[in-house]
């Protein structure tokens, strides 16, 4: 699919990127050429290239000069399973390096229907504003009446004020306004671009929300082919034996799975097995709390669970979720064994606009710090912290969003917390400033390598090889395990580039080759999965290049310290931890297989090929 052959795009892409300059208060539409689309595919690929080209010496993430790219993919909105994903790409305030975070729901589809493959937002609005995109009309409007409002409240009022229930809104909560470094962008009640602090970028640009109404047709080159492929895809998924269970429990089923495997974060990752997992698992959710299903655009899996707390002090709380990560980080990782409290925590995070994962991680760290005497009662605002004390944990969530007392320190993320309390460094689990997701890195070897080499920090979405390693890969050679990590890091970003969800592939074994067929039907450009994976590999080099420019070195490619130092206490993997020498050895092999040098730098040829050379080149 190299464009030397004169390949032309005949569908799928809209060919337009909307640039909004908040400082100047204007916008313009850029029409990009086919080469750009064929090289970067779309979504996260477009975002990374635009962020790369925008890099300037000395620009900090929260400076007006930083850009945020909101890019659904070329398949977003099309008739195929789970095509509702959109990527938010920028330089993260949490980590200071390349970052992206994806959101499900319908927001990205609406952007595409408004006629754009991506939004690029730069500058800073003079007044507190929101952006209103009504197909071709783009306005920057006063948002003073929404200041300080919670996410759902803002979305509801915007819909009422714009007199259209069908518009899509992405908004920040109070946390984003207060520049909490792990603030998220929220849409449709509980779809979040959760990680890496995209909400703080909104806040730094003085914008509260983006409201979109899109009405245009999405171009499809071969509609008959797309319908044929998708009809088959939907019926394959529909007939899958796990489908019914998946619609029932969704990602909450992972609680039992992770606990049985012994990889569930427990009390700030001091353990990987939670004795009360059966009190916060999928069964508790479905039997006592679930009142409805929720799905992203065109998705038959409907992993969203709408839950209600029926009794107790949190009675009346209605929230969508939690997903596994949220339930583990706001449950087992802070010692909470009451699912009502998990729901309350999830609700507060959504409404305040903070990431459930980082919030759970930060709070767990200070609870452990306080219990071990590393922090005094005064340090934690006089709140006697203890594992599972939900009242104080809810209080801390509010404090983080409002940057109140200890909350102001926590709002700085792992680096902010270490800056203020260096004694906590050994117990906070993070990579490059991004706290660890809810899978232990001491079991097996692949998860540690995944976290260490992920381009945004210790996030599970980049690669989740641990299940395969534990299930079938016990006897694999080290090289095979490392290749598994690289394969995940290659195939997973592809879903974000295409603007589709990866869960049909991960959870129901949906054939990833089909996505090449979808791409071909939509665009008229004939590709194979390998063609697309090559673009994805190239993207990984590009984001690596951005990170190297931002100062990342081999020393940053390491799993959290706890992975080496503190063996797991209980469960099937009690006593296990990662060996430092083994890890260095793996890192050497990993770099070599990536084609990078010993310091983890891509070759000149790779840099040229991925588009990282140029005026700002390395």
């Amino acid at each position, binding site marked *: 699919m190299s464009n030397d052959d004169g390949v032309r795009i005949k569908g799928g892409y809209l060919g337009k990127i909307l640039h909004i300059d908040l400082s100047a208060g204007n916008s313009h539409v850029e029409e990009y050429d086919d080469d750009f689309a064929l090289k970067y595919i779309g979504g996260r690929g477009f975002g990374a290239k635009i962020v790369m080209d925008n890099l300037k010496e000395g620009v900090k993430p929260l400076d007006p000069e930083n850009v945020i790219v909101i890019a659904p993919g070329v398949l977003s909105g099309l008739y195929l399973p789970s095509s509702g994903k959109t990527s938010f790409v920028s330089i993260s305030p949490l980590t200071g390096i390349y970052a992206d975070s994806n959101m499900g729901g319908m927001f990205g589809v609406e952007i595409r229907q408004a006629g754009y493959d991506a939004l690029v937002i730069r500058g800073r609005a003079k007044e507190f504003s929101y952006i209103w995109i009504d197909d071709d009309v783009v306005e920057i409007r006063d948002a003073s009446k929404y200041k300080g409002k919670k996410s*759902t409240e803002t979305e509801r009022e915007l819909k009422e004020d714009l007199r259209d229930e069908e518009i899509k809104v992405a908004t920040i909560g109070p946390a984003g306004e207060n520049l909490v470094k792990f603030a998220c962008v929220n849409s449709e*009640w509980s779809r979040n671009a959760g990680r890496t602090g995209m909400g703080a970028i909104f806040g730094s640009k003085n914008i509260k929300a983006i409201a979109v109404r899109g009405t245009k047709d999405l171009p499809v080159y071969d509609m008959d082919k797309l319908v044929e492929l998708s009809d088959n895809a939907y019926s394959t998924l529909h007939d899958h034996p796990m489908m019914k269970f998946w619609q029932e429990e969704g990602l909450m089923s992972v609680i039992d799975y992770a606990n049985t495997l012994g990889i569930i974060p427990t009390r700030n990752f001091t353990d990987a097995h939670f004795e009360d997992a059966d009190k916060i698992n999928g069964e508790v959710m479905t039997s006592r709390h679930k009142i409805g299903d929720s*799905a*992203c655009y065109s*998705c038959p899996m409907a992993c969203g669970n709408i839950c209600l707390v029926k009794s107790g002090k949190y009675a009346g709380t*209605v929230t969508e979720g939690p997903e596994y990560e949220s339930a583990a980080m706001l449950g087992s990782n802070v010692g909470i064994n009451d699912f009502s409290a998990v729901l309350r925590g999830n609700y507060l995070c959504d409404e305040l606009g903070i990431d459930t994962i980082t919030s759970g991680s930060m709070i767990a760290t200070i609870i452990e710090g306080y219990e071990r005497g590393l922090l005094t009662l005064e340090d934690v605002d006089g709140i006697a912290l203890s594992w599972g004390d939900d009242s104080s944990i809810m209080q801390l969530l509010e404090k983080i969003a409002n940057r109140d007392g200890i909350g102001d320190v926590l709002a700085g993320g792992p680096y902010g917390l270490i800056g203020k309390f260096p004694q906590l460094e050994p117990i906070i689990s993070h990579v490059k400033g991004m706290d660890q997701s809810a899978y232990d890195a001491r079991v097996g070897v692949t998860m540690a390598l995944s976290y260490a080499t992920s381009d945004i920090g210790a996030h599970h979405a980049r690669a989740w090889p641990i299940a395969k390693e534990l299930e079938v890969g016990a006897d694999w050679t080290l090289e095979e395990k490392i290749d598994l990590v690289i394969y995940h890091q290659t195939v997973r970003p592809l879903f974000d580039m295409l603007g589709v969800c990866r869960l049909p592939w991960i959870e129901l074994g949906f054939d990833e080759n089909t996505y090449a067929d979808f791409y071909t039907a939509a665009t008229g450009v004939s590709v194979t999965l390998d063609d697309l994976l090559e673009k994805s590999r190239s993207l990984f080099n590009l984001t690596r290049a951005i990170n190297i420019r931002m100062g990342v070195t081999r020393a940053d490619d390491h799993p959290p310290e706890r992975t080496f130092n503190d063996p797991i206490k209980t469960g099937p993997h009690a006593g296990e931890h990662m060996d430092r020498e083994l890890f260095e050895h793996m890192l050497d092999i990993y770099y070599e297989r990536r084609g990078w040098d010993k310091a983890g730098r891509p070759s000149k040829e790779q840099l040229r090929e991925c588009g990282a050379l140029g005026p700002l080149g390395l």
Partner: protein
Amino acid sequence: MDKDRDQKQAPVSQTMALTVVPERCSGCRTCEIVCAIHNNKVNNPKKARIRVLSLYPQPVIKMPIVCKQCKEPKCMESCPTDAIYIENGIVKINNNECMGCHACVISCPFGAIYVHADLNEPIKCELCGGDPQCVKACPKNALIYVPQHTLGQANRLIDTLKYAHLNEMQYFEHGVEKKLSYAQIETGGLRKDKIGQEHADEQ
């Protein structure tokens, strides 16, 4: 007689109804996409004849809204050019007569007629000629296409079960009057206490 009967034989669409179970809807909008592709040949849910209205967080509801093919349609009554007519039980719009005033859109009590800027005529469901594509595509069975005479059966059943569960049935055991609630039967109360014993007696 035979001739009369033949005339009363209604076409399928006249005896079937497209109905929704909002409690099952996940809000995925697959129905919208397949509708637009099938009827308009475009990938654009904004041109669909069925739409899902999602409200949250309180009340939480995802409501697929689609024409109910009323027998005495308000839309037809309100149309100033008589462009709306009923054919084989399906309420249709004659685009040649329609002047695009949208009176029907406003008068529909369910808001089941839609408007799109690209199209002069309002958009409404015509049951895909008796084979609604949305019903086939719905991953949650929230859309159902059933004979009209069975409409309401689900509610009748639920109401009957509720009634029964609140009541007790009377029976006699060794000449002594006893009571048992239907709910107990369901939880196995009867089976454990009585049926097992009867079996023991038999042996």
